[in-house]
């Protein structure tokens, strides 16, 4: 059997599994549609959260980022995991105690304001939609590379699958498919990592192999440092990204942003208790950490394999005609390019732009090409394709649910037609879910020019608007409507301003009035890392405004007690007014 047939079989089997789960886990009520009936076991919810969280970017791009940035890429490793500490201690248990369906609903109730709820809906939709475009692109790319189906058709198939299980099952269907998708993606990620670690260091545990010795007796990381500095690149284990301050702020932005992303928070509405929400955050991080601690090994080993293939010994360069099969395969995709600048028929791969002949090495190919570089069997390569798809599909579904429920529950039921019956709300949420899939698919097919910069926006929005509002709503009894709304708008405003002034208004080239140049960055902080500054602005403005305006009414202060203390059972009277 050839590789393509095996890939079709493995991907087809996983898709059949997702569809079967969707039929089994149909949602019959709005409670099941929005929060899976609040009956998901904390360990299973942790697994679903891990799949929800780990996107095509985690699966495909992160190891590549690490491979080419070395130590500097630590901001992603710490940022995307440390956020769970904040989530577990500052948000998840309290929002679970609050016990309703969506993030904007909490903001609306806690700040007794429909305006606050609508601001939150806008932030949520902007953050989730920009994030989902990347997933859709990931689905299309995975199909086109592995199944040799064109990008558009691949995207239609992926959309069809998501449409089917998300519309039918809502959160309940998504939860159980995400559990299956987690199993697929983690298996697909660790199997090649184990094989590669074993072949390079003799240790089957990649996390240990990275700190282990190679066959020649030298430590793997030392050897890697030596090889890359020989070629003029920065030392792998000490290469800083920007400056130390930039790394600090970048990590903080990713952590706060992670904790404030609504599709992740929504997962903690599905467990049965406050106790469950606390432990579930821990389980989520266990399942995430399995991949995130393996990724540094995958990245470093891929860099080593790639470099030693091209330059087996110092001064000895691989002849272009003798390049391996994977090299030829990836050249066809245009993601790997060689240009014989000095005409000697050999490949020089060095840091110096003038002499470097590997004119393009797309970092996204690292995970996908890894099994081929390490000469692993075909079924492993097919598995990686299924894993990448699982990662993209699970995240897309979680994001789409967050968007659909904020439209049907927060806008329709909460603001425009409060008298809607449960049956009609369920129908409306299915229709908005269908609509969201189609919009996301359209944006995946016609990605706006700003797609590349959207990660900055998604995390920036979550960090500068949603996280501070939620946290102050829980931890400050004094925080009121005026404070929360002005804080959200100020945090949001300054973050957008900073990103736009460096990357262009709505990312339109030429409208960046301060330019993208590093010398214009505020203390050298990159636009992607600005969310933390936005969060500080939000906290400051909110606190100042709340101090000079009236304290929240008594029933809201009761609500704060209700969410803080697990044992208070009396239902607090909740009122929402303009």
């Amino acid at each position: 059997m050839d590789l393509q047939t095996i890939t079709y079989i493995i991907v087809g089997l996983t898709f059949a599994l997702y569809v079967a789960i969707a039929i089994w886990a149909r949602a019959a009520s709005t409670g099941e549609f929005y929060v899976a009936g609040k009956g998901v076991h904390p360990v299973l919810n942790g697994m679903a959260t891990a799949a929800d969280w780990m996107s095509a970017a985690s699966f495909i791009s992160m190891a590549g980022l690490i491979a080419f940035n070395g130590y500097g890429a630590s901001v992603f490793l710490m940022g995307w995991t440390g956020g769970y500490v904040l989530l577990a201690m500052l948000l998840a248990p309290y929002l679970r105690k609050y016990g309703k369906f969506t993030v904007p609903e909490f903001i609306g109730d806690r700040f007794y304001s429909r305006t606050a709820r609508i601001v939150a809906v806008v932030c949520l939709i902007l953050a989730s939609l920009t994030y989902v475009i990347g997933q859709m692109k990931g689905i299309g790319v995975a199909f086109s590379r592995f199944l040799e189906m064109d990008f558009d058709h691949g995207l239609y198939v992926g959309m069809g699958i998501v449409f089917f299980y998300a519309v039918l099952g809502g959160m309940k269907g998504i939860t159980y498919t995400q559990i299956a998708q987690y199993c697929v993606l983690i298996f697909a990620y660790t199997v090649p990592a184990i094989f590669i670690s074993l072949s390079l260091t003799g240790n089957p545990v990649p996390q240990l192999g990275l700190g282990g010795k190679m066959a020649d007796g030298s430590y793997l990381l030392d050897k890697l440092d030596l090889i890359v500095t020989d070629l003029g690149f920065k030392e792998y284990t000490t290469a800083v990204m920007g400056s130390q301050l930039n790394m600090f702020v970048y990590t903080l932005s990713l952590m706060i942003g992670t904790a404030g992303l609504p599709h992740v928070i929504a997962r903690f509405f599905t467990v049965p208790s406050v106790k469950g929400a606390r432990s579930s955050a821990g389980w989520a991080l266990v399942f995430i950490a399995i991949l995130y601690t393996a990724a540094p090994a995958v990245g470093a080993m891929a860099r080593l394999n790639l470099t030693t293939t091209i330059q087996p010994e110092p001064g000895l360069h691989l002849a272009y005609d003798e390049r391996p099969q994977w090299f030829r395969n990836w050249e066809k995709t245009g993601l790997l390019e060689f240009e014989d600048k000095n005409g000697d028929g050999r490949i020089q791969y060095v840091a110096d732009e003038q002499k470097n002949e590997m004119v393009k090495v797309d970092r996204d190919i690292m995970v996908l090409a890894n099994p081929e570089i390490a000469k692993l069997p075909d079924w492993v390569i097919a598995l990686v394709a299924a894993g990448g798809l699982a990662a993209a599909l699970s995240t897309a579904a979680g994001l789409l649910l967050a968007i659909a429920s904020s439209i049907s529950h927060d806008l329709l039921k909460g603001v425009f037609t409060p008298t809607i019956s449960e049956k009609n709300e369920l129908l409306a949420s299915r229709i908005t879910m269908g609509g969201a899939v189609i919009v996301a698919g359209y944006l995946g097919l016609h990605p706006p020019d700003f797609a590349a910069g959207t990660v900055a926006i998604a995390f920036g929005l979550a960090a500068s608007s949603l996280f501070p509002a939620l946290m102050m709503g829980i931890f400050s009894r004094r925080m009121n409507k005026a404070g929360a709304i002005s804080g959200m708008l100020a945090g949001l405003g300054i973050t957008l301003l900073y990103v736009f002034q460096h990357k262009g208004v709505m990312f339109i080239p030429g409208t960046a009035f301060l330019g993208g140049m590093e010398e214009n960055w505020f203390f050298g902080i990159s636009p992607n890392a600005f969310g933390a500054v936005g969060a500080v602005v939000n906290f400051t403005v909110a606190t100042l405004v709340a101090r000079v305006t009236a304290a929240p009414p008594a029933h809201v202060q009761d609500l704060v007690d209700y969410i803080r203390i697990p044992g208070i059972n009396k239902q607090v009277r909740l009122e929402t007014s303009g």
Partner: protein
Amino acid sequence: MSDNSNYWKANLRLVLFCLAIWFTVSYLFGIILVEPLNAIRLGGYKLGFWFAQQGSIYTFVILIFFYAWRMNVLDRKFGVHEK
């Protein structure tokens, strides 16, 4: 009510303690003190590098379970656990 406010204070103390560790392993060991720590070796790892790419993540996991366990104890101690 005073019992509830003592419970809340105990919770805040616990959160601050956990966040101090959270800050130490990532921002302090992984970024600010990375250079001096890199002088120390952990097998093939430089220690600062290890904290930034491995150690901080392991600590985060332990920290969340520690917090969950301590909070469950506090819930019972103050009689505010879910019934």
